[in-house]
């Protein structure tokens, strides 16, 4: 889960990380008042969770409050990469002398967080993660000890960072680290951190990505979710502990296990079909969960056939079968359902379903081919 810039900045402020003066609004008229309060020039920034909003006209400079209003109304009325802009952030515009990029994220190889910093201006956050594989300046953070001041000094030293801003930089990095831990973030990025011509050290933009696995102890963060970036069903699915992603094909998929789901979607593509979704039943499958999953699939008007591919392990095929049985009794079977089951309790699963109007397949590939044939693919 990603936070908007204005949300991230509000957290930065709470953690002692200096940000420019600014306010968020959803009303263009208010942009004028905000600009008057802050003093022009200001930048008007679209709050939308896409990459590269700047190049899509999502960031405009305004020299007067009137211009700020105009810019805000322009941005608020447009769609950026298909998403409507609900809010704009109006920030004081600054004259920049130097720009830096700061990132705390997890290194999968070392299984520990790292802090990276480099002088930027050219590298965007979107591509900066590529730097993980390059030899950019970084320090590794022992998760049992945490980021230490000397590590920030090491980074600053390597970059010839001006000593008079070192104290400010240290506070920013320690604030980022504390925020990273407290919020169960997967990534905290600051881009850019700037030294202004009037000699201030400020964070102009930042990104926070939160760890979905920590949702159970970060419940308040659910309020920050942006429902615009989620397709129909994704919210519903999450309530039931299902992993669902809407795609644009017509073969509805219901699979257990993430890897098997991906392999099923790949197989559909290889056979000339188009998956309508990713749907991983996940752990702890019960009847209600299967009903909810089928409900989401059948509510998608694009779905012309449902492909159920289950390999029992942690999940038992009979549990899934009882769920399917209940769902079919509830919704009927206007849309053909193809089932492949293997693994734990597969035979009893198939036995439960055998009197229902279901097409059985002996293998995943066979099931996929049947589904593609039904929707009229090759």
């Amino acid at each position, binding site marked *: 889960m990603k936070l908007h810039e204005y949300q991230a900045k509000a957290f930065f402020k709470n953690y002692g990380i200096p940000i420019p003066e600014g306010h968020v609004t959803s009303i263009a008229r208010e942009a004028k008042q905000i600009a008057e309060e802050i003093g022009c020039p200001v930048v008007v920034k679209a709050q939308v969770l896409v990459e590269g909003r700047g190049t899509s006209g999502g960031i405009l400079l305004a020299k007067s409050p009137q211009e700020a209003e105009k810019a805000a109304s322009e941005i608020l009325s447009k769609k950026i990469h298909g998403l409507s802009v609900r809010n704009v952030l109006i920030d004081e515009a600054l004259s920049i002398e130097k720009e830096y990029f700061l990132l705390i994220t*997890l290194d*999968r*190889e070392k*299984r*520990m*967080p790292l802090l990276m910093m480099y002088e930027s201006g050219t590298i965007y*956050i*979107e*591509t*900066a*993660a*590529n730097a*993980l*594989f390059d030899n950019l300046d970084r320090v590794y953070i*022992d*998760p*049992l000890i945490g980021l230490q001041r000397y590590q920030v000094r090491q980074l600053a030293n390597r970059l010839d960072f001006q000593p008079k801003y070192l104290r400010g930089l240290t506070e920013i990095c320690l604030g980022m680290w504390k925020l990273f831990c407290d919020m169960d973030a*997967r990534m905290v990025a600051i881009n850019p951190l700037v030294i202004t011509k009037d000699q201030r050290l400020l964070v102009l933009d930042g990104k926070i990505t939160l*760890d*979905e*696995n*920590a949702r*159970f*102890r970060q419940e308040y963060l659910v309020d920050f979710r942006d429902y615009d970036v989620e397709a129909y069903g994704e919210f519903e699915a999450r309530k039931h502990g299902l*992993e669902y*992603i809407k*795609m644009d094909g017509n073969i509805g998929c219901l*699979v*257990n*296990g*993430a*890897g*098997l*789901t*991906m*392999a099923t*979607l*790949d*197989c*559909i*593509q*290889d056979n000339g079909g188009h*998956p309508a979704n*990713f749907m*991983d039943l*996940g*752990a*702890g499958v019960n009847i209600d969960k299967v009903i909810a999953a089928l409900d989401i699939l059948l509510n998608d008007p694009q779905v012309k056939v449902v492909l159920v591919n289950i*390999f*029992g*392990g*942690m*999940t*038992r095929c009979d549990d899934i079968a009882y769920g399917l049985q209940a769902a079919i009794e509830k919704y009927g079977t206007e849309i053909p359902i193809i089932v492949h089951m*293997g*693994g*734990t309790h597969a035979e009893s699963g198939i036995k439960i379903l055998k009197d229902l109007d279901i097409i059985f397949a002996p*293998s*995943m*590939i066979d099931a996929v081919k049947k589904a593609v044939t039904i929707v009229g693919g090759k």
Partner: protein
Amino acid sequence: MSILINKSTRVIVQGITGREGNFHARQMINYGTQVVAGVSPSRGGSWVLDEKVPVFDTMQAAVEVTEANASIIFVPARQATDALLEAADSGVELVVCITEGIPVQDIAKVYHYMTTKGVRFVGPNCSGIINPGEVKIGITPEDCVIPGKVGIISRSGTLSYMIMEAMKERGIGVSTCVGIGGDILQGTSFVEAMEMFETDPYTERLLLIGEIGGLEEERAARFAAYQMSKPVAAFLAGKSAPPGKRMGHAGAYIEAGIGILKSKIEAFESAGVKVVTEIPELLKLLEK
């Protein structure tokens, strides 16, 4: 015999009184695994699984009495970090964590704590380990795989089961299958498991089952090229995955261009590792 576990491994099941823990403890016993105890806070003193397995309140007590050297964790995500640290502190040498949904920062801490204690950590969010026909510490369905000489390392449980079943139908067996899990951070990586297989006399060749996300497959490709004498093949899932979405597994996402399947395929190809994305092709490859 093969890597990590054998018939003399003495296993404690953490979370044995839960539905999953109980079910899979029985499956493991039936398969030939020595399940010597269960741990379930406040259920200590009772016996489960036909009154044959004693339950303890703590790992410390369970290890003291049973001299177990491995543990498997079925504890729900909210309590799993505590269970993992308790296992690390108990004196067992191997901890396999089946639980899905543990916060990633906790896993970083657990991994480093286990490393300081010299404990081998497998998982989380994994299917565990199976030496077909002999023993398993995990949840792999027993009848999907036969003994043989292919060592498997997989990020996905169910996908590995289906592949092993397809192999079984062709008479291709497995020495050990290690589920390393689908999370962002893994206690045991591809490379670390490959190191163990390289010196295992029962494994002739290796199959890696990978997916989108991270760069561990790329590292595995380099390791296969420079440090393995045994042939390595790879099956990869997720070529149809859209960027920016988490594909079920916490670790399966493409972000900032990192984690795409194309990069993994290229890495394996340039390392001389046969890489496929379709099961029929994989079977042809393994039959050679």
